[in-house]
């Protein structure tokens, strides 16, 4: 069979965006602590992590819409970030997860170590069926966090949030459960790709829904597919891309690793549907 080979894009394009956002958030978190000691890193935000996480916007949304106030510790900037993330999700799906979220990036980088350590056994520990069922746990976490926060006015997820723990390691504000959650994610990240994103992230659950209606989605062209399944292997969220047409799976994080830009060896076979024919 004759096919035109795709031009593989450098992994550093997405990685650079991830690094930029990771560094910005990490420096912001450090700056927030330094500010309490009268030192501020210029040009870097010194806002608290709650101010820079769109999930704060999710848990406070009901209170914000009904009373005009915000849940304690949450800032209006979190609602703004939720809005921006929402716009991105409507356009491209959960690109926040695949390109921006520093905790998703960290898990991805830990996964690189895991791949080196475990080779082909990496990310195959959880059977596909169980993996699919467990991925719905995110919605349980989301429902619990939103309901309990709305009812109690307390950020109930914070003590278990490994993302909060990561960027507050040095502040003494992290609950023991937060340290345990972070340790678990880091440990599991060596054998499972993005374990927190897959099974527990409530923000990922919210954004995952956008895969059903995003404007520019990922689509596989069956006519030119050579069924090599490299797209399946490339997907960090264990989606069987090779068995689908348009990717509507709620687990997709819009990282684009499966596309003809990256894993797919055939040009214009797994691609983003963008206007103007750019793919």
């Amino acid at each position: 069979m004759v096919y035109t080979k795709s031009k593989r894009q450098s992994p550093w394009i997405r990685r650079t965006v991830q690094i930029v956002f990771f560094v910005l958030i990490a420096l912001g978190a450090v700056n927030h602590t330094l500010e309490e000691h009268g030192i501020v890193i210029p040009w870097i935000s010194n806002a608290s992590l709650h101010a820079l996480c769109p999930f704060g916007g999710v848990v406070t949304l009901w209170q914000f819409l009904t009373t005009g106030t915000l849940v304690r510790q949450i800032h209006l900037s979190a609602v703004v970030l939720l809005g921006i993330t929402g716009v991105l999700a409507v356009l491209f799906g959960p690109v926040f997860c695949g390109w921006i979220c520093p905790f998703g990036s960290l898990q991805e980088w830990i996964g690189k170590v895991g791949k080196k350590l475990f080779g082909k056994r990496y990310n195959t520990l959880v059977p596909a069926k169980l993996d699919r069922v467990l991925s719905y746990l995110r919605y349980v976490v989301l429902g619990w966090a939103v309901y309990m926060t709305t009812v109690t006015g307390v950020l109930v997820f914070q003590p278990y949030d490994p993302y909060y723990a990561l960027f507050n390691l040095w502040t003494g504000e992290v609950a023991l459960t937060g340290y345990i959650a972070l340790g678990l994610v880091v440990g599991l990240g060596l054998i499972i790709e993005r374990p927190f994103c897959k099974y527990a992230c409530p923000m990922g659950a919210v954004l995952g829904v956008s895969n059903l209606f995003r404007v520019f989605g990922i689509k596989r062209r069956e006519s030119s597919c050579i069924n090599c399944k490299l797209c399946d292997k490339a997907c960090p969220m264990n989606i069987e891309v090779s068995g689908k047409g348009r990717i509507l799976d709620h687990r997709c994080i819009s990282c684009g690793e499966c596309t003809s830009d990256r894993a797919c060896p055939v040009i214009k076979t797994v691609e983003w549907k963008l206007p103007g024919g750019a793919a």
Partner: protein
Amino acid sequence: METSWRCSVSETKKIAAPSATMVLAVVIPVIMFGGIGIAQQAGWWQTERGTATPATIQTGDFAGIYDPADIRGSSTFGEIETYFALPADLIAQAFGIRTENPAGVTAKTVDELYGEVEGISGQTLDVGTDSVKLFVARMSGIPFEADEITGMPESAIDTILTLGAGMSDEERTALLASAVADRSQEFEILAAAEEEDHETTTTTGGTATLAWTGQTTFGQVLAAGLSQEQIESVLGIPMGGRTEVVRTFAEANGLSYSTIRTEIDALLGQQ
């Protein structure tokens, strides 16, 4: 001559469309930072606190009244004065805090000064933001259920018993049981702040002293002796609310915080 300016078809280079990956790498940061920029211009990019205004009680006899339970660690005594009509210096006095600027003291400061202390019955109590909430509630007669480990300095209990809005026997018993063992704690907050925070600058004005921190509010600038007109002459735009943090306001409106600070200092120095 004219033909030398023409290109043949074979010489024309086809410009390749950018890859989707590259498009996303540009579009995502543009939308993210562009969105934040728009929010800043609109004044929505508030990262200091959710809102200075406490939530109101939603149901019952006290519906519509500000809820002491929504006082935050970052709430200043000045803000509490605004919303609960309790003088900031009275709150500071009740918690044994001596300062020239009681309106600028935050509820979190109480936690930093006291923290975990021994109660009169030997139990461990926590004196902090919840103690401020309890104080405000008992002074104003608004319902509030404190945690069992919430402690109160004796001076605060005395103030409530003398000037408070009255309470049930059960609440009185609980309040008395929350007394801390050390009966004479007093804190000189400015001295401690100056010792710890070398970045804090103090400006002496004609009528008051302004200690700049990242949390300085317009109310504090007004209290230092400047008029609203003077502040607005520095800002070039209408001033934010009394409880709004100057720094946040400056950032949200694209103004230079350090310039504002310097010019306000200059105005205070001229008085």
